[in-house]
């Protein structure tokens, strides 16, 4: 990855997200893997919150953009089979944590760039969660090996998320009757579909090229002091900050922020859980979507888990809201932490050298 591509990627995400808000998305909600998957879950009827239902074309664009460039570069490769059920569970806990905070770590950066200081609390929790995940990785944590699919039918399954994204893009563009559309609330606020889709395609293209991963960037810095990915976040933050100041979206403080609450402990623990689960699942919510476009069926299971996690969070009234995180949500995050840490402790694999020629 060259510095130029890193800078362009940061601008596409940072400025792109602000422009999407300008064109109609809710506040600090241009790109967000967790909230936008939650809205897709609503559109599909996985949860029943009438104000959070819209098949967001942005993240569908991520999948399609990543697929397109991976296919062109010969990097599309159907593969999978590394503990899909555990990845499903990790996807669910990743989502429960993100919905307690009200956003994936990407939205954490966007929120901070609009002056929402709760974003900082969440991001500190996210970094701590990644550090905890690394401790498990260093102790031999592994979900086992994925295999490259060679026979026809498994290979076709590598296209599943691309098919799903195409169907959803078609359905949302044609106001299909089998999708739910919010009449009011955040789900009713969105940029024109083609703008959302083009922004998403561009973002997916660059995210695939740079292997952008919110947990990966922090993780690589902790592990080997690699700062390349951090440059993307820095540029993204500055680009979004400039955009927010220009359009008058910037407002510094903890209270009265769009789609946010200021229960510090739960903002911290929410993204802590997301960071931990993302590290154990091999990538943040954004990266899982990108990998699904590259044909990785394990990432698809993680995304299905995220959709289910949105259903659990909203079905049990356990998601955060501008009022805060109610007791159900606090129980859900605590349970998520226990389950995720349990997975981190129990799934291990020993490695040994093999002899040349073996």
């Amino acid at each position, binding site marked *: 990855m060259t510095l130029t591509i890193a800078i362009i990627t940061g601008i596409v995400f940072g400025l792109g997200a602000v422009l999407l808000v300008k064109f109609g998305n809710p506040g600090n909600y241009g790109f967000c893997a967790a909230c936008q998957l939650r809205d897709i879950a609503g559109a599909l009827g996985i949860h029943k919150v009438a104000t959070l239902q819209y098949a967001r074309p942005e993240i569908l664009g991520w999948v399609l953009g990543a697929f397109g460039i991976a296919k062109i570069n010969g990097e599309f490769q159907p593969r999978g089979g590394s503990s899909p059920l555990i990845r499903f569970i990790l996807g669910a806990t990743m989502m429960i944590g993100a919905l307690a905070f009200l956003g994936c770590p990407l939205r954490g950066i966007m929120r901070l760039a609009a002056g929402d200081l709760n974003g900082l609390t969440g991001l500190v929790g996210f970094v701590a969660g990644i550090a905890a995940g690394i401790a498990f990785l260093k102790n031999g944590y*592994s979900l086992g*090996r994925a295999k490259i699919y060679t026979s026809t039918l498994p290979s076709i399954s590598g296209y599943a998320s691309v098919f799903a994204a195409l169907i959803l893009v078609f359905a949302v563009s044609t106001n299909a009757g089998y999708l739910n559309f919010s009449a009011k609330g955040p789900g009713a606020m969105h940029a024109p579909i083609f703008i959302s889709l083009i922004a998403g395609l561009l973002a997916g293209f660059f995210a695939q090229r740079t292997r952008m991963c919110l947990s990966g960037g922090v993780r*690589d810095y902790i592990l080997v*002091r690699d700062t390349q990915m951090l440059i993307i976040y820095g540029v993204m933050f500055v680009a979004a900050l400039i955009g927010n100041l220009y359009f008058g979206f910037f407002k510094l403080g903890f209270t009265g922020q769009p789609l946010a609450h200021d229960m510090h402990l739960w903002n911290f623990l929410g993204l802590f859980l997301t960071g931990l689960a993302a590290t154990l699942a091999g990538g943040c919510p954004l990266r899982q979507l990108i990998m699904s476009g590259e044909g990785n069926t394990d990432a698809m299971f993680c995304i299905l888990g995220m959709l289910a996690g949105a259903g659990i969070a909203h079905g049990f009234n356990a998601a955060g809201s501008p009022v805060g995180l109610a007791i159900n949500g606090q129980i859900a995050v605590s349970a998520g932490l226990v389950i995720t840490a349990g997975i981190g402790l129990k799934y291990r694999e020993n490695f040994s050298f*093999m002899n040349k020629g073996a």
Partner: protein
Amino acid sequence: MEKVLDLRGLSCPIPLIRTKDSLTVCDSLTVLVDEMPAKENIIKYVKSQGWQTECINKGREFELKIRKINSL
């Protein structure tokens, strides 16, 4: 005897962690990976340490030969 580490199919960043750990106990190592990001991460790490690496493409897989010899 040359040490070989089979890291194919392992999720990110396990290939990098295993390579890094193994290089603390040996001076030359061959690793097998089958994902582009894993290959890129390992090469980036090895180069950042100033060591030598050679990558052989074997279809969908990559064989990385790493030597802890300063390339300068």
